[in-house]
């Protein structure tokens, strides 16, 4: 394969969250048609997501919808009454290639990206892809060569369900693939893979649900697991090798050997764990790139 083809192919495998426009105004369903038209005009947008108080997607509305409503004397109607409610969405696990396929298959002008709880993360339009693609290519090269600004951060976020042993490890696999595409060294990728896998499985084994967040900047990778769960009674004990509260059932599957947290610590340059009994646990691992 020619170098340029391979490069393009790798870009297509990047998550759609890197392409989407995340700086979108939030519009509540009880805004009036004429107000939303103003919001779009000021922000030079052709369409916008309508979200509830918690940021969850409830619909989308386009400039065309708004102008049509105004023509029909509905300028004082709630945007809720004219918006499209059955919206086809993308999730953070979709790739750029998936997004392009969606545009081709559905023929819509935009797709909102939502997480597992339907919280709106950003919007993707074909224009975003055209504009962001060359920038993305540069960012990738900057990270590879370690000359990016310290402030530039790529953030990946995954929902993890407690007890889901079938999909446990999926998020970590995606993170690994992503780092491989960035061209990071094998040693770094291995350490991130171990830390993220252990964190992901800790949520699966011990918590009700949680999030795995990875932030990649030019000098370090921060991996965070934030869960809702029973919390840890004695954190000092929990980080000791061999200590585990996992059930015999889970241990039979080869988990819960009390090596998870020690493994994370051994892979990390910086490590932190905070836990509130009855609330949840937050584990942070920082791995320096150089």
């Amino acid at each position, binding site marked *: 394969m020619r170098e340029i083809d391979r490069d393009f192919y790798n870009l297509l495998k990047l998550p759609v969250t890197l392409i989407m426009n995340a700086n979108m105004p939030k519009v509540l369903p009880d805004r009036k048609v004429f107000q939303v038209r103003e919001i779009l005009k000021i922000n030079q947008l052709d369409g916008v997501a309508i979200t509830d108080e918690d940021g969850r997607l409830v619909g989308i509305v386009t400039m065309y919808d708004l102008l049509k409503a105004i023509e029909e004397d509905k300028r004082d109607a709630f945007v809720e009454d004219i918006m499209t409610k059955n919206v086809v969405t993308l999730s953070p696990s979709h790739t750029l290639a998936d997004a392009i396929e969606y545009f081709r298959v559905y023929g819509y002008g935009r797709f909102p990206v939502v997480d597992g709880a339907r919280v709106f993360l950003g919007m993707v339009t074909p224009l975003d892809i055209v504009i962001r693609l060359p920038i993305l290519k540069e960012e990738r090269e900057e990270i590879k060569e370690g000359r990016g600004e310290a402030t530039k951060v790529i953030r990946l976020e995954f929902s993890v369900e407690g007890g889901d042993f079938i999909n446990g490890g999926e998020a970590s696999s995606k993170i690994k693939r992503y780092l491989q595409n960035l061209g990071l060294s094998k040693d770094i990728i291995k350490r991130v893979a171990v830390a993220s896998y252990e964190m992901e499985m800790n949520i699966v084994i011990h918590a009700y649900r949680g999030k795995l967040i990875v932030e990649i900047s030019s000098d370090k990778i921060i991996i965070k697991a934030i869960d809702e769960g029973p919390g840890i009674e004695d954190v000092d004990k929990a980080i000791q090798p061999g200590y585990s509260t996992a059930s015999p059932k889970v241990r039979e*599957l080869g988990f819960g050997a009390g090596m998870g947290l020690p493994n994370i610590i051994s892979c990390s340059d910086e490590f932190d764990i905070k836990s509130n009994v009855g609330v949840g646990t937050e584990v942070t691992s920082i791995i320096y790139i150089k």
Partner: protein
Amino acid sequence: MTLRELLDVLPLTNLGNESDLEKTPKGGYVGDLLSNVMRFAKEGNIWITVQTHINVIAVATLIGVSCVIFPCGVKPPEETIAKAKEEHIAILSTELDAFTLCGKIYELGIR
């Protein structure tokens, strides 16, 4: 020595994709505690384990092992085989016990 060549000389059964046997394994690791395997197994290793549930393939993918071998006649469930095929992890089984299998593999120069 590729996995296919290994299959020719040892009593191994291929459970996965034929096309995933072209890899050349480098060293190996035996372990059933997944955290221990995560920490100590290396890329390209042959991983010998009696754990058969689907998460084994996630671990195999994350480490980048060349193949997973189930010793002692242990047979993985269908979903594990399907996942291995999807992730292009070679997946084999044998009637040999883990110790004997390791010895034979080591003798063949994979170390």
